[in-house]
Structures are given as structure tokens and as C-alpha cells.
């Protein structure tokens, strides 16, 4: 097997999985399911990319990531409601205004949760760099505290997540049902992927971050304060979790304080499959999980979670370090 072929091997796996359910599903349903699978994959990507970046760069297993995700959803919920009360854009018929209020809510939740992430990193995680054991305990503690803070501030009950009017419903394209919001989620997720990828590949910050994944001491020797970059990456990871939280909440239309715990397991699996610390790996892993989950959920509903675990086991046994190497 030559090198070039080897490089595209993971992509081929994706396409094989992509097309195989056609045997059991009729093509129109297949497209509908594929779109919702891609949307789920993109939402998972947003959660797991932050997790994966933080692990790859800081070598911190951030179990509080799910709580940051839930915080993102709740802040998105509150800011959406506040802006909507003030301007009424969420209920307006113009899709442009709908977009603006949605993006504003996402940006606000991203920024605030990034701040929360900075506080968490500075106050709790900073003292335990280098010890995986204590990091796990500390981040579990931080997770409990953050989740309980949500219960204290917003109350312990489920809330209904508001959705902009024009985001609801679906289009009918040649008898194929295409839901609107999943399509929007795919586009936003893909744009975010491109942005992160470009930042990591083309900017100086990205180069330093990637170098830090390889060899932190050397980066320090070159005169960069690596702790500042640690904080920055943690903040970026938190912001990604928050944006993922807001978009996920809009997808499932409800929020509750423990929502992070359910998603963090998916994020873990995606991050392991894709390779920890790899942004492209996160995308591929997330799409693999999202698509396979949706196909199997349609064919055999009860085995949907099983396929995710099976995927994890298969990938861990053939490629123990995940599909993509760190820093890509």
C-alpha cells in the first residue's frame, strides 16, 4: 500500500459507511436521515473538538466539558429570550433577523463560557498540570459545581429552548423532506471547522499551539509564555463547547441541567475515534458517529448506541491512537 493511498484510507471508510445503508433504506428516506446524521455529527464535532483540543494541547482530561456545554446552552437560552423580548427578532418573518438573533445568542454564550473557562483553568486546573489523576478529580469536582450552579441559578427543571420561527419546519425538494435547522447546523459547523483549521494551519498562533502539542518545553525555550496559550486554548475549547451547547439545545428544543453528562460521553468517543488533539479527526469521528447512529437508529432502534460502542472498539483495535495524528 503506498503512502498516498494510506492517507485517504480513513476517508474511504467514511464513504463506505456513508453508502452502505442504501441497501436497506429507500433513497428518499436515506437522504433525510443522512442530513440529520450529518447535523448530529456537526453538533458532536463542536463539542468534541474543544475537548480534543484541550486534551491534545494541555494534556488535561477535561471532564467538566459537559458542564461547560450545558452552561453554553443555558446562557444561549437566556440571551435569546432577552434579545427576543427586546427586539422580537426571533418571532419575525425575516430569515435574516432570525439568523442575527440566533448568532448573537451563540456569540454571547460563547464569550461568557470562554470567560468561565478562563476562570476554571486559572483557579482550579492550573495547579494540577502534569498529574492526570488529580486533573480527573479536579475536573469532576468542577463539573459537579458547575452543574449545581445551573440548578441554583436557573432551577432544576427542563426548559423549552426557543427556536427562531423560520428555522422550524422543512423544505420539500423533489419529494425529499429536508428539515431546515439541521441544514443550518451543518453549514455553521462546517464554517467553524474551516475557521479552526485555518487558524491552526495558517496563523502564527496556530503554529505555536501545534508546536506546543509536540513539545511544550521547546516552545517555552523559543520565548513564548506557554501558560498564556494554555489558557487561550482552554477558553477556545470552552467557547466551542458553549456554541455546541446552544446549537444542540436548538436541535432538540429543550435544555436541562444534566444535558452535558449525556453528550460528554459521545464527545469522548468521537475524540478517541478521531485521535485526541486532532481537529480533522474530530470532524471525521463526529460524522462517523452521527451518521452510523442515525442509520442504525432507523433500521434497528435499540442498537443505535451499540453501534457507537462497536465503532469505538473497532477503531481502537485497528488504530489505537485514533484516525488522525495530533495537531492536524
Amino acid at each position: 500500500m503506498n503512502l498516498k493511498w494510506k492517507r485517504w484510507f480513513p476517508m474511504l471508510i467514511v464513504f463506505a459507511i456513508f453508502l452502505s445503508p442504501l441497501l436497506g433504506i429507500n433513497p428518499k428516506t436515506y437522504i433525510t436521515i443522512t442530513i440529520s446524521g450529518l447535523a448530529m455529527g456537526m453538533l458532536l464535532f463542536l463539542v468534541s473538538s474543544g475537548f480534543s483540543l484541550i486534551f491534545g494541547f494541555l494534556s488535561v482530561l477535561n471532564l467538566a466539558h459537559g458542564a461547560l456545554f450545558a452552561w453554553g446552552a443555558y446562557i444561549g437560552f437566556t440571551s435569546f429570550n432577552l434579545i427576543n423580548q427586546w427586539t422580537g427578532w426571533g418571532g419575525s418573518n425575516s430569515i435574516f433577523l432570525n439568523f442575527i438573533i440566533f448568532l448573537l445568542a451563540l456569540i454571547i454564550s460563547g464569550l461568557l463560557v470562554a470567560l468561565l473557562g478562563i476562570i476554571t483553568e486559572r483557579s482550579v486546573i492550573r495547579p494540577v498540570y502534569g498529574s492526570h489523576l488529580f486533573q480527573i478529580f479536579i475536573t469532576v469536582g468542577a463539573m459537579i459545581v458547575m452543574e449545581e450552579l445551573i440548578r441554583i441559578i436557573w432551577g432544576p427543571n427542563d426548559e423549552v429552548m426557543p427556536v427562531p420561527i423560520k428555522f422550524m419546519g422543512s423544505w420539500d425538494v423533489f419529494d425529499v423532506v429536508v428539515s431546515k435547522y439541521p441544514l443550518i447546523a451543518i453549514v455553521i459547523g462546517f464554517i467553524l471547522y474551516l475557521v479552526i483549521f485555518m487558524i491552526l494551519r495558517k496563523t502564527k498562533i496556530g503554529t505555536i499551539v501545534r508546536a506546543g502539542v509536540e513539545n511544550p518545553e521547546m516552545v517555552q525555550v523559543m520565548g513564548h509564555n506557554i501558560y498564556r496559550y494554555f489558557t487561550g486554548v482552554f477558553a477556545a475549547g470552552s467557547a466551542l463547547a458553549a456554541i455546541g451547547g446552544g446549537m444542540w439545545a436548538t436541535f432538540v428544543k429543550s435544555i436541562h441541567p444534566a444535558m452535558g453528562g449525556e453528550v460528554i460521553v459521545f464527545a469522548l468517543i468521537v475524540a478517541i475515534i478521531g485521535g485526541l488533539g486532532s481537529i480533522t479527526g474530530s470532524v471525521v469521528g463526529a460524522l462517523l458517529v452521527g451518521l452510523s447512529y442515525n442509520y442504525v437508529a432507523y433500521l434497528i432502534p435499540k442498537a443505535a448506541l451499540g453501534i457507537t460502542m462497536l465503532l469505538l472498539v473497532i477503531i481502537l483495535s485497528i488504530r489505537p491512537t485514533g484516525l488522525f495524528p495530533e495537531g492536524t
Partner: protein
Amino acid sequence: MNPVQLFHLEERKNRFRSPSFFFRILLLAFFVFTPFMFRSFEVLDVILKIIIFSVLVASYDVILGYTGIVSLGHVLYFGIGSYFVGIFMGKLGLTSYGHLALAFLIAILISGVLSVLIGLFSLRIRAIFFAMVTLAFMEFTFILSSQLRSITGGDDGISFKLPGILAIDFSYGKFLGIEFTGRLISYYLILLLSLILFLLMLRFVHSPVGRVLQSIRDNEQRSTALGYRTYLFQVIASSFASCVAAVMGGCFVIWVRYVSPDSSLSVSIMLDVLLMVIVGGMGTLYGSIFGAAFLMVTRAFLPKLQVIIASLLPGIPLAIRLSERWLFYFGLLFIVIVYFFPKGIVGTAQEIFARRKSN
């Protein structure tokens, strides 16, 4: 004779003389005479849960404190034990001693095999993967147990009756002013099983295998260099601990006579176990007893505390909300303990005694 053997000989000689030996006897006596001292069922319930959880936490400590690998899915095996007893007694209705023993055996076997499999494909890469994969498996089993309604009873769980002398309406007659009901007999049965398992774990961590495990914890590269296949030893430790956890899961449902995903397979139990390990002290099996006692007793008194706070501060919703969320304080406690007492109660006490001795 080499220094290690000399050390063992010295240890063996002072075995029955040290103050900690009497302390252990006292502790055991306390557990044995609990039903005679406290007549209320609530107290007995708390103390039995302390016993069960201290063995569960000790088995977790074998992985965490003695081997140095982090498992976040240890409760999975506890749940397997619970569910097998529950399914055999409740769903299949096979209430006989033989089937109870069979349920335990199958649970132990499955836990052992499963933990070996999980260990084999996740410990091979990096120890940190083990934490993630075990967490994923536990979450998966949790969802599975609430979805497979026909086998596990879904979220409602299974309640069941136990055979013969363990049944709730069985009575043996009075003894020392106490009526020996099925409850009390199950109490002593569980105490006996816990004692055996605890001694077994003590034996395990002080055996040659246990010493290798501690050397892996302290310096993995060095033990590899000494010729030990470290990851095989880690797999052995994790499968041993998970078998113990499976037995404790069975004991737990024998006591509560009910099994559901929330009561024996949820992440919140895992968090409890983590907190107990931290409070008691990692790498000390006896610490688990203190950790479990601390958490269980606090939890038993918390509702009363809430009533007091609610009566002291009437009409302030935020104060009541803050007092309701006791998990919040546990989370803070988690962080504080990891910072200031990373060795826990027993570890810190041992350190103080050692310092005093050397002075």
C-alpha cells in the same frame, strides 16, 4: 535472607501488638453488634450501606490507589452484580439458594471477562484511555439497562423476593432481646461476605502481585525495565477489583431488594465512590471505611439540616435553593480535598504518626 523477607518477618511479629490491630477488632465488633445497639431500621440501613460501600470503594482503591490507573466505570460491575441477582430473583422468579449463588457466579464471571476485555484493548495504549473507555462503557450499560424493558424492567427496575431465611417475613425467634428476621440475617450474611472480600483484598495488595502493582503505580517505566509486563498486571488488578464490585452489587440488592438503573448503575454512584476514595485516602484500604462512613452519615443527616435552614431563613428562595443543592458543596469539597488533603483522612493520619515516630 533478603531485606524484603526481613521486613515481612518484622511485620509478622508485631501483627497482634500494634494499636491499629485493636482498632480493627473494635471496628469489626462495632459492625457485629450494631443490630443490638441500634434498634431503629434507619441506623441499621445507614451502617449496612457503609459496609457495602466501603468494600466497593476499597475495590476501586485497588485500581486507583494501588495500581495507579483511573477507571471511571467501576460502578458498571456493581450494576452487573445487582442486575444478575435482580433478574434471577425477580424476572425469572427463581427464588432458591442455588439460583442466588448461580446469579453471583455468573455476575462474577461476566464482570471478570468484561473487565479483561476492556482492559486489554484500552490499557494497551495509554492509561488515560482506560478512564474514557470505562466511562463510555458505563454510560452505555446504563442506557441499555433502561432501554431493555423486557429484561431489566426499564427505569422502573425490578423488585423481588428472596428465598428462605433471607425472605423479609421469615423470623427465627428472639435472641438476646432481638428478633432475628430475614433482614437481620441478610445483614450478617452481607457483613460476612464483606469481611471475607476485604481480607481478600488486603491479601491481594500485600501479595507479590500487589507489590508489582504498587511499583507500576510509582514508576511504570522502571517496572517495565525490571521485566514486568505492566499492562498485564494492570488488567489483573482491574479484573480482580471488578469481581469484588460485582459481589458487592449483589449484596446491595439483597439488602434493598430492588434494582433499577438509577439506584445501582448511575454516574452519581460513581461520583460518590470517587468522593469516598478521596476523603478516605487513596492507597489505603482502610481509608475506604472512613470515606464511606463520612459520606453516608452526612447524607443521612442532610435532610434534617435542610429543614433547619429552611426554618431559620423563611421566605428567601435563594437560600433554600442553596441549601437544597448539597451536591454543590460535595463538589466544592472534592476540589478542596484534592488541593489540601490529597492523601485523605487515613493517609494524613498515617503521615502524622510516621512523623511522630521518627521524631
